[in-house]
């Protein structure tokens, strides 16, 4: 899976597309890996912008959980934003909204993680 990647100051924003399911979850995991390696305390923060994701299965949610655990272990905050209505319902039913930082918009996610990233976003 190819991720569109953006940067706002100290925050990397990754934008997966389409369906994240049994067929694509491994590719999603591999595509996240370089950005996860780069994040950490005093280094990058991470936002996964799900605006382009129309469906995510339990396997895809597991990839998000592992990413969140790795980022946390490295001292970096990780947030998710831009859930489409169906994906938002899947997050709620699976209770992922309770264990991950989820924001309606990219702007709100950036505002939560970094003032520098928010300023860069506003200036862009």
């Amino acid at each position, binding site marked *: 899976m190819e991720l569109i990647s953006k940067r706002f100051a100290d925050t990397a924003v990754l934008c997966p597309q389409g369906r994240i399911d049994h067929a694509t979850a491994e590719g999603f995991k591999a595509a996240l890996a370089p950005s996860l390696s780069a994040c950490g305390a005093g280094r990058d923060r991470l936002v996964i912008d799900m605006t382009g994701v129309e469906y995510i299965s339990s396997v895809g949610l597991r990839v998000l959980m592992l990413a969140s655990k790795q980022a946390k272990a490295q001292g970096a905050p990780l947030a998710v934003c831009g859930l489409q209505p169906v994906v938002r319902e899947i997050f709620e039913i699976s*209770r992922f909204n309770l264990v991950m930082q989820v924001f309606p918009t990219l702007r709100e996610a950036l505002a939560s993680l970094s003032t520098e990233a928010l300023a860069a976003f506003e200036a862009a």
Partner: protein
Amino acid sequence: MLVRFWGTRGSIPVAMTSAEVKRKLVTALVAAAGRGLDTPGKARAFVEGELEFSVSHTFGGNSSCVQLDPGDGDYVLCDLGSGARVLGNNVLATRGPRGHRFHVFMSHLHWDHIMGFPFFMPAYLPGNHVRIYGCHDVLEEAFRRQNAAPCFPVDFSRMAATIEFVRLEPERDYDIAGFRVRAKRQHHGGDSYGYRLERAGKVVVYSTDSEHKQDDPEEVEAFVAFFRDADLVIFDAQYSLADAISVKEDWGHSSNVVGVEMCQLARARRLCLYHHEPIFDDERIAALLAETRRLEEITRGDHRVEIHAAYDGLEIAL
């Protein structure tokens, strides 16, 4: 075939508290105000037809025990949790004390799945026959230790029925009591085994106490094949998905979300949420059922899966 649920609660039996009973009564009485329910018939129709299930019923509190009833022959059961006590008493009350044959398929030997056997009255009566099947090498030992000091006052040797223990090999087909039966090893502490039971073109999969880590595509495929085209999948949905893969990882249970996905992939006809979390009250389980039906609806392709939540006393006709 009828599938009858005698015990549906996970981990430990639970009882409704007086506060919960009172809350149901208050809700029902307020709903009935001004309805003129002045006969038992009118009241019964109101309770059965208009009240929410979580107000008029309870999902119940006995631990795992399910009966597959093809309408003739021997009793075929899965697990001997505390629900087996109710089943045993029902058999004696409706069919008399002797001459019964029971075939029991054991998922595993944790307390909540065997604790009904010391209170399973047919096992104490001569003339009955209990055959217990399982894949664990300590199958018989677990039952004998439970029915012995210091755990229980009546020793296993006092059970006067003919009791046999039969070891099964997983991934092998057996013909037992008119069913074609296959066991499959599952992720759970000390292992558990799911059973695929087929008879007269109907397929029931009993898959409880099974954690689906989903980190191995081949293993996912193997479970999908095990569930393939089942008329009913009885599925451990004790945890939320988030809990199952975070704070409760490796605790050996699964979620409603994984149950829906597996049944969709396998094109199973019905999914029954089972082994309910003991801290959940009736409202919480009812909400879980509604959410699971919604999940099935928004993720449905060309195949619909009918969603149920097991409760003590539920019967599903296949």
